[in-house]
């Protein structure tokens, strides 16, 4: 019955792509993407701007056709059965995409009616979502007059009005202050606990720590896709954090030293990957002193997601 490709296919994955590719006139935005995401995951799609995150999400939400390959979401094909998918997913685009001249409540009512939520059900759900998103006291304010963080929360509430199984969020915290960001992620975690599958793209590496699994996207393809702990384990060597004077000169002095794998700059810090922290720390200290560069701090630290990704992207670039 399901051989003709229509109807849901039973699979342990709620999102499944096969060689998903999207080419625009001048670039290949998504290049042979292979993704498998299980029900109930918080999947984080990480990557710099232009990596192809938005294009991927749009194809998964069945509002953009792939040039090649295919994707199944909730068991339905994104090209052949887009409307079945839309009933089951929520999508929050990166850009604020609600009606600014409508109030918080009017926006919620509008999307409830479009999704055909019954009147009684509607009142109940809206009240719950307003509370959930901490917007109850702003329900009569026009959406355009909300702060950036509140706008994101309203957008999230609107995408939840039809109780989707899978939620796609495209950079939901970009341009939001740190406090609101934390609050937003608390809400996402709550949804995760309720059993909603979350697919979140973000350029913020620290947010990856809150995902159950993370994919790093770069120039249209996945460089790595695993649980955060294991991705951090992929980084070769150990990490030393150095706080020197004259950052650039210090970096140049450290790079040629034996046992140094990679040097990354972070504000006024240097992150130095070495084969062994114990053996190389004194050498680095010495080299900097000889070069006349004062060192205000040098300690070993655990690599975070951010160092791991930068290191992985660099490696990918060097391979070419």
């Amino acid at each position, binding site marked *: 019955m399901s051989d003709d490709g229509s109807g849901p296919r039973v699979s342990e994955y709620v999102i499944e792509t096969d060689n998903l590719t999207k080419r625009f006139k001048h670039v290949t935005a998504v290049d042979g993407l292979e993704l498998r995401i299980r029900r109930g995951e918080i999947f984080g799609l990480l990557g710099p701007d232009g990596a192809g995150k938005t294009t991927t999400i749009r194809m998964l939400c069945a*509002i*953009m056709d792939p040039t090649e390959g295919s994707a199944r979401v909730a068991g339905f094909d994104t090209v052949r059965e887009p409307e079945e998918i839309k009933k089951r*997913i929520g*999508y929050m*685009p990166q850009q604020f995409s609600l*009606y600014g*001249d409508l109030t918080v409540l009017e926006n919620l009512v*509008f999307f409830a009616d*479009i999704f055909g939520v019954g009147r009684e059900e509607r009142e109940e759900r809206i009240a719950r979502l307003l509370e959930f998103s901490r917007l109850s006291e702003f329900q009569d304010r026009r959406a355009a007059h909300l702060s950036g963080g509140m706008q994101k929360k309203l957008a999230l509430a609107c995408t939840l009005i039809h109780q989707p199984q899978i939620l796609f969020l495209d950079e939901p915290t970009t341009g939001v202050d740190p406090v609101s960001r934390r609050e937003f992620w608390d809400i996402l975690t709550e949804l995760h606990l309720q059993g909603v599958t979350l697919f979140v793209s973000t350029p913020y590496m620290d947010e990856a720590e809150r995902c159950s699994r993370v994919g790093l996207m770069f120039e249209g393809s996945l460089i790595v896709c695993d649980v955060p702990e294991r991705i951090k384990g992929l980084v070769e060597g150990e990490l030393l954090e150095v706080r020197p004077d004259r950052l650039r000169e210090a970096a140049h002095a450290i790079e040629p030293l034996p046992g140094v794998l990679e040097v990354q700059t972070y504000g006024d810090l240097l992150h130095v990957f070495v084969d062994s922290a114990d053996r190389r720390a004194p050498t680095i200290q010495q080299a900097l002193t000889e070069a006349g560069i004062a060192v205000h701090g040098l300690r070993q630290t655990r690599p975070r997601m951010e160092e791991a990704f930068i290191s992985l992207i660099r490696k990918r670039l060097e391979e070419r």
Partner: protein
Amino acid sequence: MIGRILTIARKELLHILRDRRTLAVMFLIPVIQLFLLGYAATTDIEHLRTAVLDADRTSQSRELVEAYRASNYFDVVAYVADEEELARLVDRGEVRAGLIIPAGYGADVLAGRKASVAFVIDGSDPNVANTVLSASQQVGQAEGLKIIERRLGISPDEMVAVEVQPRVWYNPEMKSVNFMIPGLIATILFTLTIMLTALSIVREREQGTVEQLMVTPIRPFELIVGKVMPYVLVAFFDVLEVLAIGVYWFGVPIHGSLGLLLALAAVFLITSLGMGIFISSIANTQQEAMLTVWMILLPALFLSGFFFPLEAMPGFLQAISYVIPLRYMLVIIRGVILKGVGLNALADQVGALLIFGIVIMVFAATRFRKRLE
């Protein structure tokens, strides 16, 4: 389905009510256009500023000047001493016409010889010049007949071999406002609906809200119908508004059936809404939409017969006019209002509009997809 259409329509209505500027555009602009065109775009010439060079200074010459003045076409605002002075006044635009009566005019009239005068017309605006030309000839001929009548002692009516008795139908006073206002209603209907639908749909794309709508169960057809519904109401309100001002302020008589007029306006709306939707499918920003609207609007205004009569255009322009829907609506609305004709007389035009409307709607609707490029 109906529920979703009404949801979209209600939302659109809220947008309209909350946007003062759009409200003003929708309800005030038609009125302003009507008053501007009703008064300004008239080709009726009255009280044209005229200078007189009377080198004759006889009672005959004064009688001629009086005849021109009494015609109401000309106001004598200056007497000049020579042609240079007349030329100066025309150059500066202080007068638009000049009557030159040479010395000896009175003597010629009395002696029964052919007397001649010159009439100078500022021809820079050919429309005005044409009317002035015929008015000046009419007044001159009437004066000539009076002189002959006096000389021969018989009425000129008895001398004429062929008499033409003109009967002007439909608009006997030949008031151009009677002609302008029906045309204006059609034009406003066209302009407003094409612009408002195009802008309202493009706005959703520009603000990114269309991306959010794409992941809802809404069908393109429902979105379009819901979005244009409020603008159809606005369009009909504007038609009635302009019609009321036309009738009660400008005194334009409506000879035909108002119901038929509104029904045919609805047929015309299919076309202009369809064009608006089509434009919205090719434009990405409101600015682009606006420019495209103007690219369609300007030729439509000039080639539809709204400003210039189609009969006077060269053949290839007339051929182009057949693909301009406004052309048919102008015939319909002028026919119903001025001539009081019914559906029978307008069958060709109504048929053409229906074909246009359906083709454009279907074309526009198929271009409107729930997909990003």
